[in-house]
């Protein structure tokens, strides 16, 4: 029979706890913690049976309840002269009660808001007049000739060209000088000549990427121990010889 009971859906552990307290008709400020804890955990078991997902919030609340319950079971500490200890003698339920009272306030107001919303939803508004469109509809297609049309088209094209320049799509250069190409060229030349200068490899109009690629090829060839490079002084030309 119990399996068939549809359990109410609660918005969270606080909601459930309030429901249990209301049902038991007990004073929220004096909760019989043992009873409520048992009912709370029983509810969680029901949820489990119904394969409802028990969120961590519920588990945290169950743990809190058990903690309070165990604290209540401990014998009250005798009052010592020490004031600090008195602090600890606060009812272990106090924090939970404070939270419940706070939550209940909002839960109560929620019902009121729903009522207000349902009244207000019965109200109709008039959609805004489409004022702007009304004015735009006023232009007339008279006294126009083909020249005007052409002018308008030209204006659009000019505007468009200006815009295109602003756009400035950066060109991505295709790599013309690959490392492989440069390496094989250097090798070829070294087969013909004993010594070549780095500057010989470059033309007058060599691009930056060309220079870089040649330089990288030289580094590569040095690494491969294919060539030997010397420099007569700082910043002078590189003299390349085959090893």
């Amino acid at each position, binding site marked *: 029979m119990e399996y068939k009971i549809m359990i109410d859906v609660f918005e969270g552990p*606080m909601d459930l706890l309030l429901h249990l307290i209301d049902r038991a008709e007990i004073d929220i400020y004096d909760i019989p913690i043992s009873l409520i804890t048992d009912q709370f955990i029983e509810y969680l078991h029901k949820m489990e049976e119904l394969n409802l997902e028990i969120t961590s919030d519920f588990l945290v609340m169950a743990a809190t309840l058990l903690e309070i319950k165990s604290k209540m079971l401990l014998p009250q500490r005798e009052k010592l002269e020490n004031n600090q200890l008195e602090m600890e003698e606060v009812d272990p339920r106090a924090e939970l009660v404070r939270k419940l009272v706070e*939550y209940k306030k*909002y839960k109560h*107001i929620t019902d009121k808001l729903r009522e207000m*919303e349902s009244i*207000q939803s019965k109200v*109709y*508004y008039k959609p805004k007049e489409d004022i702007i469109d009304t004015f735009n509809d006023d232009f007339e297609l008279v006294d126009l000739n083909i020249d005007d049309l052409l002018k308008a088209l030209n204006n659009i094209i000019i505007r468009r060209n200006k815009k295109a320049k602003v756009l400035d799509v950066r060109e991505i250069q295709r790599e013309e000088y690959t490392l492989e190409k440069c390496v094989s060229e250097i090798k070829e030349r070294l087969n013909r000549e004993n010594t070549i200068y780095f500057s010989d490899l470059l033309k007058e109009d060599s691009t930056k990427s060309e220079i870089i690629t040649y330089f990288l090829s030289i580094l590569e060839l040095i690494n491969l121990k294919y060539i030997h490079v010397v420099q007569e002084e700082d910043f002078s030309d590189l003299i390349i010889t085959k090893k």
Partner: protein
Amino acid sequence: MEKRELKSIIEALLFTWGDPIEIKDIASIIEKKENEVEELIEEMINEFDYNRRGIRIMKINNSYQLSTRPEHYDWIKKLSSPKYTKSLSNAALETLSIIAYRQPVIKSDIEAIRGVRCDKAIETLIERGLVVELGRLERVGRPILYGTTDLFLKTFGLESLEQLPPLEDFNNSLDNIDLEK
């Protein structure tokens, strides 16, 4: 200009605009001071009510808007298929009420009261335009501060946040429950 004439212009403006229109906009159109406009409209609201006019003037913060009266709904709905608006879930409404009373408020404070996570509810409320981010709290993590919008006021038929029903003390509401039983 005669007062009567001004009122009729204001009525025309409210009708044409349809949406809520701010006092300052009306004032600049009819070239009067804002407090004069407000006074005129307050009079109009009373006149509309007194004469049992089919439309009323709603106040939402500093704006005014024309609307029908909720008590006429049963007749108006015969004109068309019933107005269907998906009402808010309990979770969303609970979250909304906490935001309404506590704004500006951060998510963790809302969650502390409700005892559950509220991300989904807040998301729904923002989607519905009832809640907005007001800024961030200058604290570790700079959490977002939430507050309600004018649409919130309109949806619940409130002129301003001050008109929210008072958050009753728990003791009072307990008495109420007892009375109902």
